[in-house]
């Protein structure tokens, strides 16, 4: 079975309000899926549901063929890594932040240091190792946050608008570095963005979420050519960015 994640008839509620409906979504191993949609559409909710930090009101999410309800919560969460919109670093040094998830998993100190050094280097923050989190710029902090996730060698990487809190120049460089890394790693990755250029550059496929519902999943080119309904068409048009052109431009 090639699917790492399989969602069927998922409904997420906050209080009595329905916030996300997903009819069906399969994500094969090694795929990078970009989740796009307007603000408040339910994109982040989808990631939280996939991380099992939000429990479904109905429907099911399967991970490696097993319903998330059947997984031990901690065992499952240790297979994934979550990168939030804001870096949310702890008040400690950069190297301690990067090694934090390894510490939670009881990885021994020497191995932890070696792995943290490798990923600090990969993210270009090795010179900041001894600096405290509060002394970093937005871009540096986000790089540390990415290193903190990659060091865990997760089977599934979830990223919620990882570049939105940084300036455009840093954003461009970060996106380039991350695209290369994801292409090299073939790690199953789901990331949320409302930038179609990012979605087209980094995603193998794109999922469009509008008004709390997963509307369409497919290659950016296919979605542009065959929007499933008026809301998808309007969303793409409103952004006034042609994802296909972006994709071709990048190619």
């Amino acid at each position: 079975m090639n699917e790492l994640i399989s969602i069927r008839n998922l409904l997420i509620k906050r209080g009595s309000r329905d916030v996300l409906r997903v009819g069906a979504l399969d994500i094969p191993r090694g795929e990078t899926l970009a989740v796009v949609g307007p603000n408040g559409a339910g994109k982040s909710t989808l990631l939280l549901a996939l991380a099992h930090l939000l429990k479904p009101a109905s429907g099911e999410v399967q991970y490696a063929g097993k319903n998330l309800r059947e997984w031990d919560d901690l065992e499952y969460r240790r297979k994934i890594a979550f990168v939030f919109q804001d870096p949310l670093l702890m008040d400690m040094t950069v190297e301690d932040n990067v090694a934090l998830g390894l510490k939670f998993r009881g990885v021994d100190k020497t191995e932890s240091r070696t792995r943290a050094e490798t990923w600090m280097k990969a993210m270009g923050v090795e010179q900041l190792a001894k600096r405290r989190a509060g002394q970093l710029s937005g871009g540096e902090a986000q790089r540390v946050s990415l290193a903190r996730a990659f060091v865990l060698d997760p089977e599934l990487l979830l990223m919620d608008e990882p570049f939105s809190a940084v300036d455009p120049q840093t954003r461009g460089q970060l996106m380039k570095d991350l695209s290369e890394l994801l292409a090299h790693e073939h790690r199953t990755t789901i990331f949320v963005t409302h930038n179609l250029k990012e979605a087209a550059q980094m995603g193998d496929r794109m999922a469009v979420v509008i008004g709390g519902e997963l509307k369409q999943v497919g290659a950016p080119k296919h979605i542009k050519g065959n929007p499933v309904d008026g809301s998808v068409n309007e969303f793409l048009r409103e952004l006034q960015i042609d994802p296909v052109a972006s994709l071709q431009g990048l190619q």
Partner: protein
Amino acid sequence: MCTCLPVYVPLCTCLLVYCPTMTDILEITLLSLQVSTIATLVSLLIGLPFGTWLALGNFRGRSFILSVVNTGMALPPVVVGLVVAMTLWRSGPLGGLKLIYTPWAIIIAQTVISAPVVMGLTAAALAALDPRLQQQLLGLGASRLQMIWMLWREARLPLLAALMAGFGSVISEVGASMMVGGNIRGQTRVLTTAIVLETSKGEFERALALSALLLVITYLINLALTWIQQKGQRR
């Protein structure tokens, strides 16, 4: 030297005035420190987990419990003294334990006073953290206990302030200690009850000297905790 002046001057005054009964002073001071430290530590053991549960929990009646705890932060010591005295009284529900007029009775009363302070300030300190921090820690594979430990670590400075406030609320209270301890010389007399006694006898110099000693002790303890707090801020 200048920074030591607030310590030396009242201390010397106290020693000069109270020289003949140095043993008494030492006993009273030690008992004050013992009961208030134990009461604060017990409050911490109760207040830290309970305050954490209130800050992180999502359950019905949470707001009501929070409002009760916040009210508890302003509990009048005499009311606490009355309730604890009635409970520990020979004919009271816990009379059989024979704790009334012992240092343990003072510790119980002081714990009732300081626990809501530690609890309320712990809840406030944790509620002030970014709520997404919990999800981030869980998303990095933290167990529930590891997550709570990291949140305490992040809020360590306000939590230290909660501890200072808890200690401050009991080292300086007199009503409850007097009612449940009885101010018995050599047994349950603490600095605050001794000050009340000396004042009632018209021995103002002695009362002033003891007050100065109480202030110095409170100052030194808070100085130490403030130093730890500022060291944490500078890091």
